[in-house]
């Protein structure tokens, strides 16, 4: 079976998104239409600007669909998707650790709640250090195809550098997750 040209796939996605936006999402999720009458005067409603965006998207989709086809048009392959999935998983794992490592550690090893300890060393660094390490060492390891000592070193150095850059000199700057908890 002949595979579709990448531009055709992109055009269909754009047209479908524009159609959903203009026909369903916009009417359901805005209070005013394209225009409204306030105190007897016509004013632009909240739906007009997103409708303009949707219309431009549809035009772009039509131009792509009926426009010239380049033979070497860039397209996605399974490697792109695999690599991106690995990166997303690593960043999400890092975010989870950033958010919960500190509070979990205080539940297990401290008498006070994390909120009371979030300005205290080492508690305030636990989340950022563990999550940051996972992001840096994890991404380096995926690229190299193995976990290496250099990847671990890069993770440790990165965390220490960023703590030295943001937390040590500035009292009012908060590293993750200390502004959320």
């Amino acid at each position, binding site marked *: 079976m002949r595979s579709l040209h*990448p*531009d055709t796939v*992109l*055009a269909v996605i*754009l047209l479908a998104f*524009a159609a959903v936006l203009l026909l369903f999402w916009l009417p359901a*999720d*805005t*209070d005013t239409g394209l225009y409204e009458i306030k105190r007897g*005067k*016509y004013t*632009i409603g*909240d739906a*007009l*600007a*997103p409708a303009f*965006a*949707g219309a*431009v*998207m549809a035009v*772009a*989709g039509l*131009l*792509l669909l009926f*426009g*010239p086809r*380049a033979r070497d048009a*860039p*397209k*996605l392959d399974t490697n*792109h998707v695999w*690599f*991106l999935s690995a*990166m*997303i998983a690593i960043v*999400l794992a890092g*975010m989870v650790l*950033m958010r919960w490592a500190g509070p979990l550690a205080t539940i297990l090893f401290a008498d006070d709640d994390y909120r009371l300890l979030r300005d205290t060393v080492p508690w305030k660094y636990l989340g*950022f250090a563990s999550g*940051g390490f996972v*992001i*840096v060492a*994890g*991404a*380096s390891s995926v690229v*190299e*195809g193995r976990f290496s000592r*250099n990847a671990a070193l*890069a*993770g440790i150095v*990165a965390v220490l*550098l*960023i703590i030295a*850059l943001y937390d040590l000199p*500035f009292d009012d700057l*908060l590293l*993750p*997750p200390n*502004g*959320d908890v």
Partner: protein
Amino acid sequence: MTALDYVLAGVLAVIHGPEAFTLLGIPVSVTVLMVVAGFFAGIVVGATPGLGQVIALAISLPILISIFGFNASALLPVMGFMIGIMKGSTVGGAVPAILFNTPGTPDSYMTTLDGYPMTRSGQAQKALRVAHFSSVSGDTFSDICLFVFAPSLAILVERYLDLPEKTALIILSLCFIAVVVGRSPAKGLAAAALGLFFVYVGTGEDFHPRLSLNAPALADGIPITAAVIGVLVVGSIFSELEKLWREKSTAGTITPTSQSGDGRLRWTDIRRIAPYIGRSAVIGTAIGALPGIGSTLAATLGYASGGAFHRRRKAADEPEFGKGAMQGIAATEAANSSVAGANLIPVLSLGIPGNTAAVFLVLAADTIGGFNPGPGVFRFTSEANPELVIAFGLFTTMVIANILNWTVGGVFMRCMGIMIRIPKQFLLPVVLLLTFASLYVQQTSMAMIGFALFFGVLGYFMIKLGVSPLPFVIAFVLGRQFESTARQAFSATGGDPFFLFSSWIAVAFMAGAVAIIVITVHGRRASA
């Protein structure tokens, strides 16, 4: 105050601002110190593969604001640092392009075409010197044009551009950048449409936050820095890491690039490259002065124009463009550098950023307050106009950065080859974490990292599908201003639905918007 008084006040605001320290009995102001620091930081990030001025500006903005605070006195030190970064990274950006064949930005792609062949033939030092000389020459020319033309252009703008015309101009700018940047006008339009769509999520004038799906995280809109940094920086990091991963998978190892070559730039060389620099400087400045147009187009046009000139003028023993001609480096670097100064003309006089770096200047002004880029900045009033003083202060910081560029910039730039010793597979993840941390400290919410990841994924797909992220970014930045100006214009014309055609200037802008799309699409169709 007269015009001269304003110029003097701007210079004094920089030179005699709050004192940082005294050097040999001479007080050095904080603003001057910040320009110097920004300049050297700019060369370092420009010369570091995988980094660039956008990342540097994104990381430095929250740090600078936390240091200097949200008051008008913070404007010159913060924006001075950012201008230093812009100037330094423009020069430094040629380093990876020439030495490692890796353009840090789309602007320096053309530099690789002749720079890397020169490196391979043992002329890396000469190529770097040509790049530095051409870049600084183009930049200086562009700055002079900015100083001379920005105030008069702003006055013209104020006289002739009312709300309908401004709305039409934004549409023209968006159309122009959407169809000109990148290989496909349709993909550029799609990117701009996506930028507009995302900026309208959760905003609006009604109580109900539109398009928010009743999600609290979307109710206040999408943070501009998270979206811009996500698409540009996180997306690029993912893309670069993926290239390294493929290289490792196929070749079994990631090959480090080694530097070679030596050479001086002699007077005869300068005479050979001077016509190319002159042409490209004019092209870059003209492109830069157009609102919403980036330096990539200027670099491409400068290179193409230089190439045509070279075919007619080259000596028999000189290499062709694309095969190691130093004139090719000169044409590209002069063109992309001369955009920088001229780009501030639409930024300061219209509030429309011409490239991504200028977006951060607008962002800084917007965040700190006390300076609203637009026609009001260049109002020469007898009562002191503080915004005009700041504008001339900014021009002064550009002069300082240019002096640094001419004197120590080249030496420092050539020392930056050492950055290649850090393997990119370790450097880029560190930059990724630094980017996330920098976004978090701005709004102290994990949602910022989530947004950056989302837009990073979008940016990655855009890069892989050949969609330039620049129209997305410009549309996202201009989207709210576009809607707000259109609302005001509609009201001001008494609810006239044809307000975009209410004057000949607005009609001309709208006709230009349609024409640029039709001509570009037709041109690409013909060349396909």
